């Protein structure tokens, strides 16, 4: 049971978003949701002024859970409702395709009404009358669950015209992607929803809050982010802000996969648990009695961290003054800021663990195959560079490495990041830069031709 994180860790875990999802007997039906207090926050929100809800979300300090950690209230504040004359759209990013991330799927499949309630409140707060859930195409089952849940919500007038007699109208529809990772990037998502190839738009000017869906103001938020809004309305922004640490408020769902004994997803207050505690106490340590070699802390685009590393972290101490402390990888408290200070990012919360038997060139080759496949192809540096890096890595794992390869990889990665339309450019070069820099010796030893065939790519 605990294998997939289905049972909350009784000691430390603090489940808000996943509070009911794994409860025995809890179903995605609306009746079950209502029995557990569902849609009470919607009633509360509809009695509030939309601007007051935005103010609560700002006060809560909520940061987006989709990857970049942008403050949600600030994003919502970009739309000037006094001036705006166009329709506003709210889009839920349920594309969840960042390797290592598997939290949103749990929410969608097990507690869809929590998301729907969060979306209705968020739509109301942003004056949106039409919202879409962009769900990745592979989750056909999730799309069916959501459609059923939306029909249930409509039947009870939580959706539709004049919701609960408030005079507010809203509908939400499900839109299925079709297998392209770039649809998770917010402007790619918008293009896809407009019936086009998911080519990201250049920002500026295409910040969704100004020029989003059909060039109207649009809010794009992640599944977990939108669920949090419901709880902010419930407890109030100030109370929510007390959970976790300043700038890392609320809980976060961490997904752990790879070489640990008990992989799974776990919800903790911001900064309440360290990397070491999560890996060793919660996930049972490294599997097969092996040792930790490296981990990627925030989905596959995040820079890799190496076992034994020590980081100099600048942070505010209790008195509010800045201090610099030394921390080992295991001591890093899990939050946005500390992981960023370690030189990586907490991104989407997906932690991928590699044990000491793993070949880092092969692991990177695997990830590079992903990026080479998923580049949308608009920008030459990304399209050509991602494929080129993959070819070099394939060659190295195939035993045909050349002495210049490690440097070639670094040069290629350096030519992509910062030169592209969207952040995919960084996403595909950060793993390469960090793997080569931190495991230089392995890349150098593979940079000499020898008969070898990668284990992770043996059949590809």
């Amino acid at each position: 049971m605990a294998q997939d994180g289905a049972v909350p860790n009784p000691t430390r875990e603090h489940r808000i978003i996943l509070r009911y999802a794994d409860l025995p007997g809890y179903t995605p039906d609306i009746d079950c949701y209502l029995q557990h207090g569902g849609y009470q926050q919607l009633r509360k929100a509809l009695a509030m002024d939309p601007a007051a809800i935005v103010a609560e979300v700002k006060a809560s300090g909520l940061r987006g859970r989709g990857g970049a950690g942008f403050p949600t209230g600030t994003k919502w504040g970009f739309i000037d409702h006094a001036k705006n004359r166009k329709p506003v759209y709210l889009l839920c990013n349920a594309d969840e395709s960042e390797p290592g991330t598997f939290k949103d799927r749990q929410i969608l499949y097990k507690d869809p009404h929590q998301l729907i309630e969060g979306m209705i409140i968020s739509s109301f707060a942003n004056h949106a009358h039409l919202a879409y859930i962009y769900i990745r195409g592979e989750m056909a089952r999730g799309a069916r669950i959501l459609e059923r849940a939306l029909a249930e919500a409509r039947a009870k007038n939580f959706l539709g015209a004049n919701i609960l007699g408030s005079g507010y109208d809203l509908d939400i529809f499900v839109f299925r992607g079709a297998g392209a990772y770039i649809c998770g990037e917010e402007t790619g998502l918008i293009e896809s929803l407009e019936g086009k190839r998911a080519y990201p738009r250049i920002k500026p000017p295409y910040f969704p809050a100004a020029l989003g869906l059909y060039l109207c103001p649009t809010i794009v938020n992640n599944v977990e982010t939108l669920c949090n809004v419901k709880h902010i309305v419930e407890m109030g922004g100030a109370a929510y802000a007390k959970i976790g640490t300043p700038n890392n408020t609320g809980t976060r769902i961490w997904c752990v996969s790879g070489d640990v004994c008990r992989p799974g997803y776990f919800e903790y207050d911001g900064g309440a648990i360290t990397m070491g505690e999560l890996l060793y106490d919660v996930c049972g340590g490294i599997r097969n009695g092996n040792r930790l070699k490296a981990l990627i802390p925030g989905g596959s685009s995040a820079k890799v961290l190496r076992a034994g590393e020590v980081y100099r972290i600048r942070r505010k101490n209790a008195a509010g003054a800045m201090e610099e402390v030394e921390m080992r990888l295991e001591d890093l408290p899990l939050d946005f800021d500390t992981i960023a200070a370690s030189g990586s990012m907490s991104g989407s919360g997906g932690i991928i663990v590699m044990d000491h038997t793993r070949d880092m060139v092969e692991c990177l080759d695997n990830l590079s195959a992903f990026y080479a496949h998923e580049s949308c192809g608009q920008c030459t540096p990304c399209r050509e560079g991602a494929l080129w890096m993959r070819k070099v890595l394939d060659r190295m794992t195939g035993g045909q490495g050349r002495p210049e390869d490690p440097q070639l990889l670094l040069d290629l990665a350096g030519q992509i990041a910062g030169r592209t339309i969207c952040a995919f450019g960084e996403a595909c070069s950060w793993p390469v830069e960090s793997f080569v820099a931190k495991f230089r010796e392995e890349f150098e030893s593979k940079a000499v031709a020898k008969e070898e065939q990668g284990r992770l790519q043996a059949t590809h």
Partner: protein
Amino acid sequence: MVAPEQPLLPGEEVLGPEFERKAEEIIGQYPASRRSASLPLLHLWQEEFGFLSERAVEWISTKLGLKPIHILELVTFYPMLHVRPSGRINFKVCRTLSCALAGSHELFAQIRARCGATVAAGHGIYVSPDGSYSVEFVECLAACGSAPAMMVDEEEFERATIDTVERILAESREKEAAQGA
């Protein structure tokens, strides 16, 4: 074009009223732009007929008042859209890191061997010579914590093994036997 002069499939020349009704319902969900219904209609067609023929591109573009290229460019961009039928049972195995660490590449090889999926059908899809089975790699399926992840048609499987595959094959044989009887 999609594929040279494909014959219509049975039923494809007459799209039943139910199909038309579903299509209209989908279009109704995008009041600001019919074009937004492109991908949903492609999904609808593929669910009904298994793959997207030239006729699909024509029909959808006419329905939405678009040029065929607007639909065709989606077909060639999105990996889930197919212009050829895949096997009667299609295995999608996750190839990305967490699953690879848990042996998904070995599983892929086992499925290929078990199903005799030896014919490379482009885009990394392998099909058995009689067209019964196909196997393909897909990217991370958002089930990395219970790797390896696999999909069979639209059903998701976690911690998949060759035993899972055997069970699925046995079940499908039973179903067919029952239908044949």
